[in-house]
């Protein structure tokens, strides 16, 4: 599957296209295969996202897991500061990244 990501214009936070909006949670990302360019152009023009681009992902327990480690680190936060990640209380989240 292909999922669409970018950064929030104001905060720079990593965001994911949910089909109708942008979410901080990669689990909310939907498959955009075939439509990625159109959505990216439209959303960037509306300033709802900064520099969007599509990446490869796979379904993992029903939600999107980016195929490449760089995108997984990007989705979670720094692996060396899990307290700053999106899931600071999940003891196993490091395994999801690596």
């Amino acid at each position, binding site marked *: 599957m292909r999922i669409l990501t970018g*950064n929030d*214009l*104001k*905060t*720079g*936070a*990593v965001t994911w296209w949910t089909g109708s909006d942008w979410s901080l949670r990669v689990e909310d990302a939907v498959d955009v295969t075939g439509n990625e360019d159109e959505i990216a152009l439209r959303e*960037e023009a509306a*300033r709802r996202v*900064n*520099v969007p681009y599509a990446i490869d992902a796979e379904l993992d327990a029903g939600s999107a897991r980016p*195929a*490449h*480690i*760089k995108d997984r*680190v*990007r989705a979670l*936060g*720094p*692996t*060396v*500061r899990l307290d*700053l990640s999106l899931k600071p209380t999940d003891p196993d989240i490091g395994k999801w990244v690596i």
Partner: protein
Amino acid sequence: MYRYDSYDQAMVDARVEEFRDQCRRRLEGKLTEDQFKPLRLMNGLYLQLHAYMLRVAVPYGTLGGDQMRALADIAEKYDRGYGHFTTRQNIQYNWIKLEDAGDILADLASVEMHAIQTSGNCIRNISSDHFAGAAADELVDPRPYAELLRQWSSFHPEFAYLPRKFKIAVIASTTDRAAMKLHDIGIRIVERDGEQGGELGAQFYVGGGMGRTPMIAPCINEFVPLDRLITYAEACLRVYNRHGRRDNKYKARIKILVHELGAEEYTRQVDAEYAHMLDQGVEPPFAELERIRTFFADPEFRAADEASASNEPAKTASEPAFQRWVRRNTNPHKAPGYVSAVISLKPVGGIPGDATAEQMRLMADLAERYGFDELRVMHTQNIVLPHVHQSDLPAVWRALDGAGLSTPNLDQIGDIIACPGLDYCSLANARSIPVAQKISERFEASGKGEALGELKLKISGCINACGHHHAGHIGILGVDRKGVENYQLSLGGSEAEDTALAKITGPGFSEEGIVDAVETAADVYLRERTEGERFLDTYRRIGMTPFKEALYG
């Protein structure tokens, strides 16, 4: 240290307002990202893996207590309570909001700081010896020359769009603590013909660098008179600006030009340009250099035998942990009774170069109370109190120890340089920090760190080499191998006066495997070393073969 005059302040204040307006227009949609990107990069604002990242310039690594305190305030007010000191003596923040960028720059300007020329194809922040103005072995303080170069290069229109970024380092001792020969231009202040008390001049090394094509800069001029320093530097830049490649960013650094032309031909062209420029009034008045020098006058050092005014109990001086820290983390000072004290940002298992706002404030307090209000950022990602009276060391150590800043590991295997790597950097291919953490923990647990003595280990998460892996006694380069992190090991590098580029040992290792491999290499050294040999000396004597046999045999 240098303080802004009204021109400096006006320039920086104007830039703040200009960038504030550019940010506003971006947020209102009047600038596209393509239009805005070069503008934000001119102000040190990157878009990194997780958020905007702001890199703040610390000129030649020197800052005062008020500036360190302002950096702490920014970390707390606009970021997530910490900052990361970099391998170019700067600091960067990882979680900046675009809407705050103008306010942050204004806060920086209020303490004579900015983020200009920390990105883009311009002359970047000038770096220098972190013990400048204090080291017992220096000829003179190199910072006035670094400051003159800073003023010359700031907003210089001719050098705003170079073929590629351009880094300059200035030192003034035979010991190189600034990786001078691995810069685009490295300058060493010397005496003419090496004669003690002779005329001072500048030795120019041009065309060094790390990155994907590491090169050691050749010396192209043994002696440039100091009243021609800027003219000669400008001649070097002009030849580069004229002939440096702009068609391929991987071949655009000056090192490629010097290599392809040959040092002799490059020098000939620089000399011709220099001769052409001599009567054009490029050089600033020598009085300006003299004015700058006054800012770097020695503080009023106390007598060597004067007692400390602190309340630290006398017994602290006899504590083994304190004595080990003094042995390891202090450097000889030119003034009797003084040392330079290194504040370690490398706790065992910690993130190299990170400091919390509270730690920054403590460092500022200590500088103000015990160090003539001066601090230095080391390119090895530690902080220096350059002038500490020996009687004050127990009080300084006690305060640092209470804040996790007293790890006694300067230049040892735990004192690892590591770039942010894949945990923060969008260019990285692999994580650097977890590898650094595991290595420091491994050697702390085994107790071998002290026995190994000087062993400089440097880790980069990609070929851009921000972690200086080419110059490590042991270097590690993280690569992406079909989506999996892999680590190449290299041995024998040095960024000191005996500059050398490390050689790759062979096939790479997994994340766990690289930690074992480093220990294996360290064990070969412990087995093979002779009396007084450092790791690097042993490697140079016995060569790569015994290490390869142990690693892959």
